[in-house]
């Protein structure tokens, strides 16, 4: 036996040790230090640039967030820099809810969307795209075009030079002026880190003319030259602040950024929140209108919704469909906002090759009649309405957005009987009545082989995609295709082949996942998915062959600044893709948010991230 006094002493010691843990909670939180030094140099007043400018007019308090953006294109308007009518007496703040800790302030490393959203709060780029797809200058004074002399094509060499002029009234938070040195420094750092982009391939040189002028020379016309130094990804970093030796991916200045944008990072408690305060010397006079932006990292969707209901948050980033429905209901203190055009396309990827074997055709997916039959057997409207609760639009081509508008390709019909007939024509029929088709004269399988395949989705999307997968599998079962459903982590699905990756090794039969392109030019996106050539045989659709080569040749044609010609070529590509179906587009979804009623001016965009116009946001109490 031992004495009770001993136990009491031990209990006391343990209690004291555990109580000490309280001190962790009560101590001030460790935060990442952010540069908050204010500019010392006197910032010149913002003069209106003479040419193109964004539609950045301060939204009126009454403007509903869901209102479609006005048709007035910003092409020739001067930026509206007038302050809101009434100066807020008290400090205003908004709280944004995001799902994960951003890893840094640019999206080239992780790119979950959170990084880009944080980047827009503190950083600027040369140009941006508004929700209507119009490109407007930000750090630049105008968008270079052939008409204004900013774009010159050398007919002999085919080289194109683009001249950018920068504003001279933009300052870093430490008072240094933003110049082309910073732009070139950022570009060089990205090139040293081999960050890939279509523009990177096309660029011959980027040269400084003076502090506010630079010339970019392309080997050939670069269709996305207008957002070469802008869009949702590119931000200009400060040369004097970043340590180039650290390297673009490693440098601290993308985690503790020096601000040139509307806000300054004040505090970052990892996995908890980031606090941004108004940049008093932001170049647009009077902006931003909101003093403080708090970004809270809340992983649980139901908690985010509850916080919105409680009025403790103002913007719910990418709400789940069921929550989006509740945001649409009027009178609960919240509202719903969506981009005027769709952003993401949900697609099926049928592998035309046998699993992991680039030489052997897939027993039935290699036959385009089967692919057409599978598409015909999917009731896309039911998926959109019953599973995605109406948050989607049927899509049957990559070119669904303006200016292409599906290129006149008619929407395919949902027709189970037609699908069965097409499968029969392709040699797949259920003759023994077990519900699964067998090969009877099919092109690529042995007689009697069963029509079965694996059908995978990625786990992170959540329940709605799982339901859609099950729904599609049931419809395919009704035409005699048996599927083995799989839900795979993204880290496995897109991993490198040597790490057991499925997509890149072609070790799949049918996958379903979503993607889409921001910006205005689909060339890079098409290249990723469909470009097939001897020297670059792999593409995300795992598509090869004669028709793929034709499409590759057409994609090569897209390297031009002639937008009308691009449109023509895109529609030609659309025709081939419609015929061959290397991917089956199902529906598109919007960029959407839940908003508090007090937050005004948020304009979701299919071309940029939610915070693209954060300087224009206002709050009404």
């Amino acid at each position: 036996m031992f004495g009770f006094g001993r136990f009491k002493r031990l209990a006391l010691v343990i209690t004291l040790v555990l109580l000490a843990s309280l001190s962790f909670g009560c101590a001030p939180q460790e935060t990442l230090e952010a540069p908050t030094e204010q500019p010392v140099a006197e910032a010149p007043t913002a003069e209106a640039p003479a040419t193109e400018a964004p539609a950045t007019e301060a939204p009126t308090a009454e403007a509903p967030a869901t209102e479609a953006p006005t048709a007035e294109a910003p092409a020739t308007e001067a930026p509206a820099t007038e302050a809101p009518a009434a100066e807020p007496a008290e400090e205003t703040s908004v709280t944004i809810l995001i799902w994960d800790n951003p890893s840094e302030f640019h999206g080239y490393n992780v790119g979950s969307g959170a990084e880009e959203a944080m980047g827009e709060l503190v950083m600027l780029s040369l140009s941006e795209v508004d929700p209507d797809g119009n490109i407007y200058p930000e750090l630049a004074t105008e968008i270079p075009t052939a008409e204004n002399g900013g774009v010159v094509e050398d007919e002999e060499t085919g080289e194109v030079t683009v001249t950018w002029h920068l504003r001279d009234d933009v300052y870093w938070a430490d008072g240094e002026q933003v110049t082309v040195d910073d732009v070139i420094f950022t570009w060089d750092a990205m090139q040293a880190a081999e960050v890939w982009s279509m523009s990177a391939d096309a660029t011959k040189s980027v040269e400084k003319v003076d502090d506010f002028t630079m010339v970019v020379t392309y080997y050939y016309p670069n269709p996305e030259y207008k957002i070469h130094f802008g869009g949702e990804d590119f931000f200009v970093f400060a040369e004097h602040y970043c340590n180039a030796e650290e390297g673009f991916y490693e440098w601290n200045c993308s985690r503790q950024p020096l601000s040139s944008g509307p806000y300054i990072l004040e505090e970052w408690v990892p996995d908890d929140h980031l606090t941004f305060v108004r940049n008093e010397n932001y170049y647009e006079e009077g902006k931003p209108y909101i003093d403080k932006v708090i970004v809270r990292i809340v992983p649980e969707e139901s908690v985010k919704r509850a916080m919105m209901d409680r009025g403790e948050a103002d913007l719910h980033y990418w709400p789940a469909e069921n929550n989006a429905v509740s945001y649409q209901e009027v009178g609960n203190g919240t509202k719903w906002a969506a981009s005027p055009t769709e952003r993401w396309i949900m697609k099926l990827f049928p592998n035309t090759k046998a699993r992991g074997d680039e030489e052997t055709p897939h027993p039935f997916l290699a036959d385009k009649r089967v692919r057409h039959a599978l598409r015909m057997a999917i009731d896309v409207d039911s998926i959109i309405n019953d599973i995605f609760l109406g948050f989607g639009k049927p899509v049957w081509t990559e070119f669904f957005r303006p200016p292409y508008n599906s290129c006149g390709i008619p929407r395919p019909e949902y027709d189970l009987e037609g699908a069965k007939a097409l499968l029969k024509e392709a040699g797949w029929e259920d003759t023994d009545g077990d519900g699964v088709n067998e090969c009877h004269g099919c092109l690529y399988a042995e007689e009697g082989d069963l029509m079965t395949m694996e059908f995978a989705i990625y786990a992170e999307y959540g329940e709605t995609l799982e339901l859609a997968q099950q729904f599609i599998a049931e419809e395919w079962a009704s035409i005699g295709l048996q599927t083995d459903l799989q839900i795979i982590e993204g880290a496995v699905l897109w991993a490198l082949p040597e790490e057991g990756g499925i997509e890149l090794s072609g070790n799949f039969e049918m996958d379903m996942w979503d993607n889409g392109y921001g910006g205005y030019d689909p060339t890079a996106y098409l290249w990723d998915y469909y470009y097939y050539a001897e020297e670059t045989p792999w593409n995300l659709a795992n598509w090869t062959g004669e028709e793929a080569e034709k499409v590759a040749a057409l994609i090569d044609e897209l390297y031009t600044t002639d937008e009308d010609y691009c449109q023509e070529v895109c529609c030609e590509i659309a025709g081939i893709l419609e015929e061959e179906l290397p991917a089956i587009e199902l529906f598109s979804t919007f960029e959407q948010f839940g908003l508090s009623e007090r937050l005004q001016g948020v304009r979701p965009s299919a071309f940029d991230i939610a915070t693209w116009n954060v300087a224009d946001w206002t709050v009404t109490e």
Partner: protein
Amino acid sequence: MGQYIVRRLLQAIPMLLIVSIFLFVLVNLAPGGPLAQYARHKRLSAERVEALRRQFGLDKPLPVQYIVWLVGNDWMPIDTDGNGITDSYGTRKGVLRGDFGFSYENREPVLEQIMDRLPNTIYLMGITLIIVAIVAIPVGILSAVKQYSVFDITVTALSFMGQAIPEFWLGLILILVFYVSLDNPFTGGSFLPGGGMYTIGAEFSLVDRIEHLILPVTMGVVGWVAWWSRFLRSSMLDVKHQDYIRTARAKGQSERKVLYKHALKNALIPLITIVGIDFPYVFTGAVVTEQMFSWPGMGRLYYNSATSRDYPMLMGILIIGSGVIMLSNLAADIVYAYLDPRVRYQ
């Protein structure tokens, strides 16, 4: 005892080494990889992704990767730019010299990020454990003393419920009731905060800190109290029927003295085993609780690292967790000897 502790600590070193090998192999053999994000978004060319593999050392055989993780690479030439040619000596010092590497996700040092989150987890889980002890021990004792009473039956029923309730469901219900539905009668706001460690932007307030603790702590406490109290009840019932208890009663000692001086002390000894098992959670965190209540702790860091296959971060968390488990077991053994004079370590 001193010799015993030293011996156990020395034994822990090869044990930790063996555990680290197992963990390293398991983490790396799991399908998937940290570069998947680049493949989907194609922000980097295939060549650059391959170069990154080389830069991260992922192209090396697993034993070499392990050695680099353990002892660093400042003694061997490496391929710093990923072009396939070794060009200079590495800079990593390895875990044995306190360098846990950098996160693939954000290229920041692993240890730095762990140290950011560790205090938050110790804060949450430490308090949870204190409350579990405060509630479970008296409840377990009373249940045993009043066996088959209404109190005992009620506690038994609640314990089963506590063990059966899925943690995430309980968290959601707590949020629904105390954050969404109920109002604070004084402020008009929510009755309790639904997440986070404190009110952002507000002055420090102990009340605010405690309010933010109530729901996540409750979520953790329910299951643990159920488990600990059932365990103590059984242990107490076993002890109650021992000969020495009968002897104590025969000597004319009061029932209270018999129970609390003789029975309880001995019944508590097995609980030390449970505490030894549960104590590492104070350092490794609770994934579900931290996810549900947006708590910036180790559990969330672990979850995020696992989903993104951030191997260095995963290994850092796992190896620290393993070390804490070993120390916790050692501490439990030491406490046995301290509490029970019959236990002697040679």
